[in-house]
């Protein structure tokens, strides 16, 4: 029987204690702290498995569930949290600033997709931050301690920890709220700190920690061993040959290559990511790029970012290690979301300076990517946009005529590095039908997919569908007005989660990576007649006997 079917005892409780009568639980007019914390199937992620925690050396490995009354927190957990909070306030000035400066203006309140999708007031970023701020006020600043009654402070209890776990896992660290905050508070950083603190006492999420452990051991999220990693790509090479008649020749761990290419591993094992990978391979072949792919730095993503600063740094370090070992000049990065926040905002100071690499210069166009002078890592969208701008690609956008597209800005690339135009420039060049979603749902105001920051767990599906509702609504609008059937994105988590979101809310809309469309449109030298796209779907007007 499905684990999601309620137990008899739960049903009894449902019918006897919580009779399904409407006005039963009206909390309007009450304080936010009076709203109960309730874990139900669908609104919490499975905790880290004991063996995963042991592999990582993380504290308090045990079997537990969020629905348990007793979470088996370790002895002295209150001190661990207090000390952890104190240490982070000292180490991260931004965190202290964010806790101190909120004036509760509420500008962020209706900007969060989880608040918009669930309507739960504790999902207003201001209130979510208050969950931790209230403890901070109780325990720390002296004046606030004296004025306890007025400061909204509260004691740290096991219930508070449960509340933190529920709500800091209903924040995808997308930073949409921070765009609207007049004080510049980045609630994502508050969530990052809260999750770090929770990890200190073993309150965690297996969908984050299992990939972290896999990355730590084998270099990528799914734990694919090097030979399988190579086999997967070789298998895609065969597919490309079947479809185009062109044999592309990626190399692996090749010393002396000019460029190291790193992409999220979802592009190597998952659908639809693999089609994006095929697009990259075709592009590199088309321009004769001297590149190599590493089986050691085989993951662009970094779930350490959702775990702790130290883990993020450790998992990120392999990029520079491998670039140095192989002696490449610079690194080219694939389509990913949070990978680019780590690379763009943290990598240089965490694991740099990468003075053994050169400032990236496109070997095809000669363009110097001075924006990547410190990290030495270039985003594939700007690399391709530059190629198109210099007329270096032979493209036939008609090959994407079966795809009526819109573009989803991935949160971390859009808000984390300000990249808005390059992917759009590429998209407009490789297809003939592109329609923007509503202005307040794109670019820096883009809505998250609802599954970012390691919340793409199947058991969390109900909340994901609610959190993704604002994005789905915006897609629905262009689906209805422009018959859009294709949502293009440049993030691996988007490619994994948006197909589910679309199937639920907007049946008829499929999800594509940008470079999959590039791969469709590229006219390769010596290719056979192309009648199918990289998914083997027929291209409009290009079938057998059609011209």
């Amino acid at each position, binding site marked *: 029987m*499905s684990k*999601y079917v*309620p137990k008899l005892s739960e049903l009894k409780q*449902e*019918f006897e204690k*919580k009779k*399904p*009568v*409407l*006005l*039963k*639980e*009206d*909390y*309007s007019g*009450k304080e936010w702290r009076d*709203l109960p914390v*309730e874990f*139900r199937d*669908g*609104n919490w992620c499975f905790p880290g498995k004991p063996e995963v925690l042991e592999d990582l050396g993380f504290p308090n490995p045990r079997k537990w569930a969020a629905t348990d009354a007793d979470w088996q927190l370790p002895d002295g957990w209150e001190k661990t949290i207090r000390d952890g909070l104190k240490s982070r306030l000292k180490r991260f000035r931004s965190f202290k600033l964010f806790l101190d400066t909120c004036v509760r203006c509420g500008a962020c309140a*209706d900007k969060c997709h989880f*608040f*918009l*999708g*669930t*309507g*739960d*007031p504790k999902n207003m970023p201001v209130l979510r931050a208050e969950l931790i701020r209230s403890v901070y006020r109780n325990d720390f600043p002296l004046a606030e301690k004296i004025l306890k009654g007025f400061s909204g402070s509260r004691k740290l209890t096991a219930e508070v920890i449960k509340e933190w776990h529920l709500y800091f896992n209903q924040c995808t660290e997308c930073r949409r709220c921070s765009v609207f905050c007049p004080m510049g508070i980045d609630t994502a950083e508050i969530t990052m700190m809260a999750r770090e603190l929770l990890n200190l006492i073993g309150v965690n999420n297996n969908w984050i920690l299992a990939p972290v452990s896999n990355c730590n051991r084998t270099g990528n999220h*799914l734990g694919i061993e090097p030979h399988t990693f190579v*086999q*997967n790509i070789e*298998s895609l090479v065969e597919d490309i040959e079947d479809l185009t008649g062109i044999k592309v020749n990626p190399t692996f761990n090749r010393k002396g290559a000019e460029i190291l290419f790193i992409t999220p591993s*979802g592009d*190597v*094992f*998952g*659908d*639809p990511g*693999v089609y994006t990978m095929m697009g990259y391979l075709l592009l590199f072949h088309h321009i004769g790029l001297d590149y190599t792919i590493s089986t050691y730095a085989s993951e662009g993503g970094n779930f350490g970012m959702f775990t702790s600063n130290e883990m993020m740094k450790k998992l990120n370090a392999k990029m520079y290690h491998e670039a140095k070992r192989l002696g490449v000049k610079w690194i080219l990065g694939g389509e990913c979301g949070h990978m680019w926040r780590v690379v763009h905002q943290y990598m240089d100071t965490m694991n740099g300076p990468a003075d053994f690499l050169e400032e990236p210069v496109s070997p095809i166009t000669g363009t110097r990517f001075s924006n990547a002078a410190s990290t030495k890592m270039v985003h594939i969208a700007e690399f391709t946009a530059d190629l198109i701008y210099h007329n270096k690609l032979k493209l036939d956008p008609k090959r994407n005529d079966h795809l009526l597209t819109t573009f989803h800005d991935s949160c971390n690339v859009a808000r984390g590095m300000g990249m808005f135009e390059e992917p759009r420039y590429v998209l407009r060049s490789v297809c003939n039908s592109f329609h923007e979603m509503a202005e307040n749902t794109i670019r820096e105001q883009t809505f998250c997919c609802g599954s970012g920051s390691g919340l793409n767990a*199947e058991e969390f*599906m*109900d*909340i994901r*569908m*609610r959190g993704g*509702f*604002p994005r789905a*609504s915006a897609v629905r609008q262009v689906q209805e007005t422009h018959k859009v059937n294709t949502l293009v994105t440049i993030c691996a988590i988007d490619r*994994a*989660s948006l*197909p*589910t979101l679309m*199937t*639920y*809310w907007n049946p008829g809309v499929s999800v594509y990576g940008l470079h999959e469309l590039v791969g469709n449109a590229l006219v390769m030298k010596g290719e056979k007649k192309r009648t199918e796209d990289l998914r083997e779907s027929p291209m409009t007007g290009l079938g057998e006997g059609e011209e």
Partner: protein
Amino acid sequence: MTIEWGRAVQENKKNILDAWMSRSLLLFSGKMAAASPVAEALHQALRMVLDNCEKNSELLTDGLVQLSRILAVQDMPPSQAMSLFFELKKIIPELSLKGSQKQSLKQLDLDALQNRLEELTLKAFDSYMMQREKICQLKLDENKRMLFMQLRRADA
């Protein structure tokens, strides 16, 4: 022939819809802001159901699908979600008094309304279950997509 309760609904639609909407928001235990996009979508779905509640039609089915799609992923048991329809039993006669008819619905009409609401509830429950089944399927499909290359190799 127009059913009396149906006429009462059509004549007092706005008031009935507003009342139904505010009762529906209470389902969320005070955790749903009235101006949120979900509340707006809920309002649209309720309107579609109310517009077409008298007889079965494609539009009614669409309305029920939209409504159940929202309800099926909320933090509430199915019984609570379905209790939404029982509210109409109270709201329609209550608000019909204020309409142009200036008289209450007769017992016969109330019985007919009760029967229709029971039918609607069962239809809505089917639709709700369809969405839950879809959620299960989505979980399965997502896992398959994640293991796409491994599964492909296994088949080969």
